[in-house]
């Protein structure tokens, strides 16, 4: 899932310091699961902002709403009748949600309350580890199910580099060397042949904004379909 981390409070507070009435919008999917921007986090931030602004003698009126997904037209419709009542929206969704919301209401400032930090696995409650950079060209079949783009600090396709340090990456003794792990796993599976060949230069596909249209589907005729 997509994970995010709440921005430092002072940064959020500064973003909306000129506004007196703000809609604080949570997102009920990824950022709710990773404890960054769901209903609970919306309530906490609301309370913190309210108190801070009162202490500043600059009170703010904040209403909250949490929709299922801010990256989905269907759920954004919930904002249509209420947005005009607010000077701005503070969104706790990932970067996708913030942009989709801002696109739908071009006359209203939409601010991000979280930093989106990647696509991660849920290791334990509150503990998320990045596993995918969505390069668009998955090589996990070759590398024993360990992503060299994400897990190798240099993103090497023909590793390991010379900096492997007792199984760990040169950047940190807490970070396992991806290529050491790849080697070990493929050796266990007797599949080292898959990394004997040189992986050629990558044709990067993530250098332009990507649009995905699945087979059998097409782009809607009008842009305001919801």
């Amino acid at each position, binding site marked *: 899932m997509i994970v995010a981390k709440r921005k430092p409070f002072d940064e959020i507070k500064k973003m909306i310091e000129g506004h007196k009435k703000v809609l604080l919008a949570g997102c009920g999917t990824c950022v709710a699961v990773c404890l960054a921007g769901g209903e609970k986090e919306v309530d906490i931030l609301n309370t913190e902002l309210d108190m801070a602004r009162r202490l500043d003698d600059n009170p703010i009126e904040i209403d909250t709403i949490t929709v299922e997904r801010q990256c989905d037209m269907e759920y954004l419709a919930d904002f249509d009748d209420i947005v005009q009542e607010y000077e701005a929206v503070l969104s706790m969704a990932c970067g996708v949600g913030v942009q989709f919301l801002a696109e739908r209401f071009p006359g209203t400032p939409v601010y991000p309350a979280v930093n989106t930090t990647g696509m991660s696995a849920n290791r334990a409650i509150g503990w998320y580890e990045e596993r995918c950079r969505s390069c668009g060209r998955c090589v996990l079949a070759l590398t024993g199910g360990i992503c060299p783009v994400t897990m190798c*600090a*240099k*993103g*090497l*396709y*023909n*590793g*390991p*580099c*010379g*900096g*492997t*340090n*007792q*199984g760990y990456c*040169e*950047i940190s003794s807490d970070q396992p*060397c991806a290529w*050491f792990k790849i*080697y*070990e796993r493929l*050796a266990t599976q007797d599949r*080292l042949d898959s990394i*004997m060949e*040189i*992986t*050629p*230069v*990558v044709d*990067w596909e993530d250098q332009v904004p990507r649009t995905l249209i699945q087979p059998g589907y097409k782009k809607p005729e009008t842009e305001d379909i919801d």
Partner: protein
Amino acid sequence: MSIEDNGLKSGSHLEKVLKAGHFAFTGELGPPRGSNVEEVIKKAQHLKGTVDAVNITDNQTAMVRMASWAASLLLIQEGLEPNFQMVCRDRNRLAMQADILGAYAHGIRNMLCLSGDHQKFGDHPNAKGVFDIDSIQLIGMVKKMRDEGQFLAGGELDGPPKLFIGAAANPFADPFEWRIYRLAKKIKAGVDFIQTQCIYNMEKFREWIKRANDMGLTEKAYILAGVTPMKSVGMAKYMKNKVPGMDVPDEIIKRLQGAEKGRVAVEGINIACEQIEEFKEMKGVAGVHLMAIEWEHKVPEIAEQAKVLPRPSV
């Protein structure tokens, strides 16, 4: 004689020395942290006549320094042959190819293809690491430019860069078992010569070079053994504990600790020279790459003691 009809790939001095079967001896020079030309020239004077080619590092340890191609040109002006290092960390494929062409156009004939230390180590730790291509892909790219006269993407280039292509190998980093295959991949990609990581664990190196011999790899590329003399016990401990991928056996540290007061550096040089003597006789080793880090002025003395002088003229 033009390089097309003499069987040489680049015609570099280093290539000629190796091809003639001489035991090669290369050195290293780190460009300055600034535009101080005098510093480059001063360091270069110690290396002149004592080594066959000089590696010019490329933002080594991810610290910004004078560009490696620029310092390489200064060396050419001083009458030395540079081995232009290029890391994958700081440039994408466009910039790399542009620099390769520019370097060749200005007389650079050797190039070393490296991944590069991670930017986290350096003075700009939050820089974006490029790593558009990796070191093995870089080798292949230079070879394509040289031998097929084509850019990476296939377009024809006007005036192929006839470079002698080098790469690094670390026989000591984990997983040891895989290191020889990584060497094989570099050779398959088209490397002409290899300079190894600093060797201290001779036993492990003997095992690695034996495997390289057994796999026929030493027939396909020249292997230069990396040597860095220890200046002090502190340096040895630092290399052992702090430098990733470095293998410094306790015996080396003990031997340095056992040296008389004020004689530790001498003992470090003794160790290095003993290693060089062994490399001269070691099957599969075509030369030594001496990395006397910020110790360039000691290189003539080390070369003398290691009996690698005079350097051959080819």
